[in-house]
């Protein structure tokens, strides 16, 4: 009898986690999905109204602002972070032997909360007392840098803060990838007379493709989930000009008593994340099987 119990032990141990996961991840997703098809406002009301909430969502100008912002933010954030991360990794890889200190400096922003990041940059970009004043004091009295309070430019401040926070991580990924490149490949290129630039362009970077993909996936994941940073840096403002889907969902589900609409926006966010993650995971796991 005890032997039977012992054999079932692995399953028993995993059972709580499996159940919790079933309920708190997949079950909850289903609940939110169901809610998005109801009329719910302040409290869940199980009166089904089909796609009405989604129609309302995509007719909502504020949601469109959030989506546009997401696009702008994601593209810029990923492009700049990739560029910076790659550049720093390449510079570190070739030039410094003891890069521990520098790596620590580039990476430490990842250790702090997005709230701290937002708070710090909110001060740095403060119109009147921040960078604007600093540059003016340096002798450029007409310099203006008020992005934080300009509706068209507010989203770019979020890009700046996010890049500061996450580019170190991209650098770490690329550095690990660069260090993993087979030395003999580089030596062969040198024997063939390739210049440093060509060696990188034709030989090293192609080998780093999986790292690129990994970084893009992770960065876009961070971008879609961005909530903390927006709350602390701009609060979604001025007005709702720097809103992102995550802040939209929060405001409507909790402050504005629009649960159904909030749920619909959450489901759209999920769809966006899945569109990126699922193909990536599929190709990764399939590659591992062989």
């Amino acid at each position, binding site marked *: 009898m005890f032997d039977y119990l012992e054999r079932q032990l692995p399953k028993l141990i995993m059972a709580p986690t499996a159940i919790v996961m079933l309920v708190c991840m997949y079950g909850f997703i289903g609940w939110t999905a169901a809610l998005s098809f109801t009329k719910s406002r302040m409290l869940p009301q199980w009166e089904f109204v089909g796609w009405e909430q989604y129609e309302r969502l995509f007719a909502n100008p504020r949601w469109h602002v959030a989506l546009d912002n997401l696009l702008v933010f994601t593209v810029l954030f990923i492009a700049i972070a990739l560029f910076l991360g790659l550049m720093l990794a390449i510079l570190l890889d070739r030039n410094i032997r003891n890069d521990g200190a520098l790596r620590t400096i580039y990476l430490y922003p990842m250790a702090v909360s*997005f709230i701290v990041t937002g708070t710090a940059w909110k001060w740095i970009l403060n119109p009147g007392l921040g960078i604007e004043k600093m540059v003016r004091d340096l002798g450029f009295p007409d310099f203006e840098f008020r992005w934080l309070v300009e509706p068209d430019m507010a989203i770019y401040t979020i890009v700046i803060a996010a890049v500061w926070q996450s580019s170190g991580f991209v650098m770490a990924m690329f550095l690990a990838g660069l260090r993993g490149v087979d030395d003999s490949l580089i030596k062969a290129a040198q024997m063939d007379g390739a210049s440093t630039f060509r060696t990188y362009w034709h030989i090293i970077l192609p080998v780093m493709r999986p790292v690129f993909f990994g970084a893009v996936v992770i960065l876009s994941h961070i971008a879609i989930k961005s*909530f903390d940073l927006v709350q602390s840096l701009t609060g979604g403002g001025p007005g709702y000009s720097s809103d992102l889907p995550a802040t939209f969902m929060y405001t409507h589900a909790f402050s504005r008593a629009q649960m159904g609409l909030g749920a619909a926006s*959450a489901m759209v966010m999920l769809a966006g994340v899945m569109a990126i993650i699922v193909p990536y995971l599929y190709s990764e796991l399939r590659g591992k099987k062989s």
Partner: protein
Amino acid sequence: MNTSTLSQKLSKAFFITLLLVFALAYLGPLYVMLTTSFKGIEEIRNGNILALPETLNGSAWSKAWSSACTGGDCYGLAPYFWNSMRIVIPALLISTAVGALNGYVLSQWRFKGSNFLFGALLFGCFIPFQVILLPMAKLLAWLGLANTVPGLVLVHVIYGVAFTTLFFRNYYVGIPAELVRAARLDGAGFFAIFRHVFLPLSTPIVVVSVIWQFTQIWNDFLFGVVYSGPGTQPITVALNNLVNTTMGGKEYNVDMAAAVIAALPTLVVYIVAGKYFVRGLTAGAVKG
């Protein structure tokens, strides 16, 4: 053989300078936070953000810690600092322990559906939490844990276990299966093998898991802001409230001091055990 020509030396010097300039840029915000926190209000208004403080005025710090207003209350960040501690420590201990056992099962005791379970867990690491915010609120209310510290601990454990399981499972698959077979022949059962064979080998991954969880939970804002109430908020929520509450003139030095206080624990952890932190990031992320 002399390999460095003058142009090579010059370009190397250029690149190093570039790296240093970037280093300064990355350190910039930290520098600004610290210097601003030690300045007086007048000094802030009249000076510029890059200037060093004239005198080291610590009043902003004591205000941030014990008397600044975070929304309705004016107790400073101190109570919320301890809230975060009371949330983080149990949550990371429980999620690490559960993750270790789960990783042990998934890596060494395959059963029908264990791979599927692992895939489902892995996928769960990526979902945007917006999709579970509302139903989780209902669950917490139903359990009577709404707006409580234990409630937040529960939430962080539930969603942290996916990550910790991933860490431990990826680590434990590296332990040779013959070791488990030898232990079984020696008469060790499921728990005995875990205790005598796996646990002694787990120090590196436990460190990674603890550091990762500490950072994630301490820095969390979303769960904090949704599932806490007045008095039970974590420090990130309190900081945000402090900065966005303007009673009278804005006190930037207090804001900055508060931000540094909120950032200190994870920064200290990072500086002390940074390489394990990096290992955790790249191991969890790159290997998927």
